[in-house]
């Protein structure tokens, strides 16, 4: 009986437990890119919103025309789609590189559990917009996205959990500073994504 064999057994057990229950090909660099898209998006949004009003004006009141509103939704939509597409593409490439299956029980479970809080938040926010209550839109997107990350973290790399918790905290904090939603957005979707994406990239992507 060799001790080396037993160590090998333990390693194999760990690897199989991880591989069978978590989607391990999630790409860290896609997080970095999503952060960059978000920063560009918020920069464009900032220019649209404060084109007429100078930022030193009262942030709490925002006068937007329909065209500007549509432009903002357009930017948010493009950033969202680009981030998702990048995430899928880079994770797919990573799974190919490591000879893992991309679409299997673990990736399905990950997506479903990510989407449940996210879709709940999405509908909630759409209903608020319908009622023309805009103040809480930015904080709620952050909080629900954070919850989605925490929920998804059980099915993929653990870092997502801390990203989610950070998002939730900053989201809640932003309720205290209504009117500065765009800055919190840039901080959360932009800076946090880049930080956690870099951490994940360093830990899992390289090699």
């Amino acid at each position, binding site marked *: 009986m060799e001790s080396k064999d037993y160590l090998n*057994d333990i390693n*194999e057990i760990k690897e*199989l437990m991880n591989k*069978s229950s978590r989607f391990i090909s999630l790409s860290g660099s896609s997080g970095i890119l999503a952060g960059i898209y978000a920063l560009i998006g918020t920069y464009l949004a900032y220019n649209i919103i404060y084109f007429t009003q100078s930022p030193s004006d009262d942030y709490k009141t925002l006068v937007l025309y329909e065209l500007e509103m549509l432009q903002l939704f357009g930017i948010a939509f493009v950033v969202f789609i680009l981030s998702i597409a990048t995430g899928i593409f880079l994770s797919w490439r990573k799974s190919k590189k490591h000879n893992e299956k991309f679409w*299997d029980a673990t990736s399905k479970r990950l997506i479903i559990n990510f989407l449940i809080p996210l879709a709940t938040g999405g509908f909630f926010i759409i209903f608020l917009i319908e009622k023309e209550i805009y103040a809480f839109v930015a904080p709620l997107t952050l909080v629900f996205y954070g919850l989605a990350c925490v929920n998804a973290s059980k099915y993929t790399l653990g870092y997502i959990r801390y990203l989610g918790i950070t998002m939730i905290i900053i989201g809640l904090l932003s309720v205290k500073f209504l009117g500065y939603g765009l800055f919190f957005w840039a901080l959360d979707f932009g800076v946090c994504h880049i930080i956690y994406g870099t951490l994940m990239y360093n830990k899992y992507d390289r090699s």
Partner: protein
Amino acid sequence: MSLLTNINKAFDNRIRLGIMSILMVNEYADFNTLKELLDVTDGNLASHSKSLEKAEYIHVEKQFIGRKPNTRYSTTKLGRAAFKKHIDALEQIIKKQ
């Protein structure tokens, strides 16, 4: 060596150890999932899963999804306890060395 008394012979094989590892962290897994994760042949997987079933460590359910037969596996209480004991024994041995 008294340390070896808790080593379970049923898990003294890469495939049986693998089946148990996967089922410990998943509610259930079907035949094809196990096959892909463990990278084994049908016959190999079938015979090893049968021996775990005989030891009453895993539970086998045969059902139909549409027209396709589907076999899915899950751990039994006995199996979970035995596997935990086995892992503890492995860790003890590694620590002692």
